[in-house]
């Protein structure tokens, strides 16, 4: 394939002034003077996957703000991705309301802990939260793990804990979830595959 010279060009006041438009006798002068009143605005479109259910509809998120200039970026609109092979641009009412979800004042962005018997939520670190979950899991597993059944056959079951995984996970995340959860002996594994 031949790339010809007319495929790339830069348009400036000078090139416009010597372009075919000027050669034909039309003066782009007034249009050029107008340019000085204008300013560029920069927007971004980003693909993502709807977090609600396992259909995993494609999204396009529109945001304003120039990352390079340290200005605050903000998502201003979310809609279905027409190129997405599964959803072809459609969204259910929940997905169509995702912008409210993103900007919700009650949206939780850090882990909180309410101790047994307490009625107060306390902000905790992610480290503290994962450590506590791991500790409780180990305690329960040590207590209830079933290595062999009544007939003496090896079963390696941990029946007292279930696991609910996310809906918008990739294949790879699903594979890892399965490996981790099944290795522990958890039988009750489900994905949030429906709403």
């Amino acid at each position, binding site marked *: 394939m031949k790339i010809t010279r007319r495929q790339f060009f830069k348009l400036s006041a000078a090139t416009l002034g010597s372009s075919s438009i000027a050669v034909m006798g039309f003066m782009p002068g007034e249009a050029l003077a107008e340019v000085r009143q204008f300013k*560029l605005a920069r927007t971004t479109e980003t693909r993502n996957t709807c977090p609600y259910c396992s259909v995993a509809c494609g999204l396009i998120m529109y945001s304003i703000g120039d990352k390079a200039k340290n200005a605050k970026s903000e998502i201003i609109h979310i809609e279905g991705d027409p190129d997405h092979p599964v959803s072809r641009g459609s969204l259910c009412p929940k997905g169509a309301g995702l912008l409210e979800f993103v900007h919700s004042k009650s949206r939780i962005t850090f882990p909180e802990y309410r101790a047994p018997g307490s009625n107060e939520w306390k902000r905790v670190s992610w480290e503290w939260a994962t450590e506590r979950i791991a500790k409780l899991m180990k305690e329960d597993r040590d207590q209830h793990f079933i290595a062999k059944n009544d007939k003496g056959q090896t079963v390696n079951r941990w029946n007292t804990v279930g696991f609910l995984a996310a809906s918008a996970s990739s294949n790879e995340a699903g594979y890892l979830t399965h490996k981790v959860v099944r290795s522990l002996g958890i039988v009750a594994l489900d994905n949030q595959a429906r709403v």
Partner: protein
Amino acid sequence: MAIDRSNPIPIIPSATEIPFLLLPETENLFFDRAARLKSLATGHAMADYLGFVAEIALAQQQALNSLHPSLPEGTGGPVPLDHTRLHRDPVWQQVLRQIIAAVTPKAPPDYARWMNGLLEKATPGDLEQWAQGMLEGDPQHCDIGMMPMVAAALQVYWTALTRHLEANSIRHHPDGHAAQQCPVCNAPPVGSLVRSGATTQGLRYLACSLCNAQWHMERIHCVNCGESAKVFYYGIEGGDDTVQAESCDACHTYSKVMHMEKNPAADVIADDLATLPLDVLVGEAGFERYGPNPFLMTETGHAARD
């Protein structure tokens, strides 16, 4: 029941399949373009030029209505109307004369005299050289003042040839074919349209600068280099957001996108010419444009740097 294999069932893409190719609507394509140009011209700083290109578009529609060329030699390959291989029927030269005659009364007098003078002296061989110069963007073989007229005639010829094609017969780019070149005629696109309605709602199609076909390309991808993560959109602050410059921080080129959702009459040629201040600003920001508009030819176009 016996199956009649001599008459295979035509394959119609399913509703969920993205139509790859949209062929030009030859009954009203240039007429719609003229109408769009005229409506954009109202109160526009370049009203006289937009109005003149509208006259060219009307002349193009008139020429197209009575033009039914047969498929010439060099057609039917993987890119069926490849402009680098096809042997043009000299009928396009009649179209050129027809268009020039039609727009002469509306053209600036000096330009009208100059272009008719040039045309009178030109041999059929000269005209072929103009066509070659136009298709290659080479001002040595075609004066840039003449290029828009030559392009207008060639557009009519190639658009007429697309009547021989079935959109369903071209479902993807042939192997090794660049995604940013027209799969029908191999010319570069002017820019793209994000369409609205029916089976193409919200999808982006590149619009050919020569045969007026449109082909699908995924949105949020640089037309020039295919990059996705570093693509963003420039528009005029507080301005009409029908037209944006899809710009790429990876290869520093941009290509214009017209949103039909914002304005169903949007047309790549017309809306491009009406938004040249955007090009100047994006150019000043350090980006080079990919995709020519035959009605805006410059002396300084050049090939890819690599």
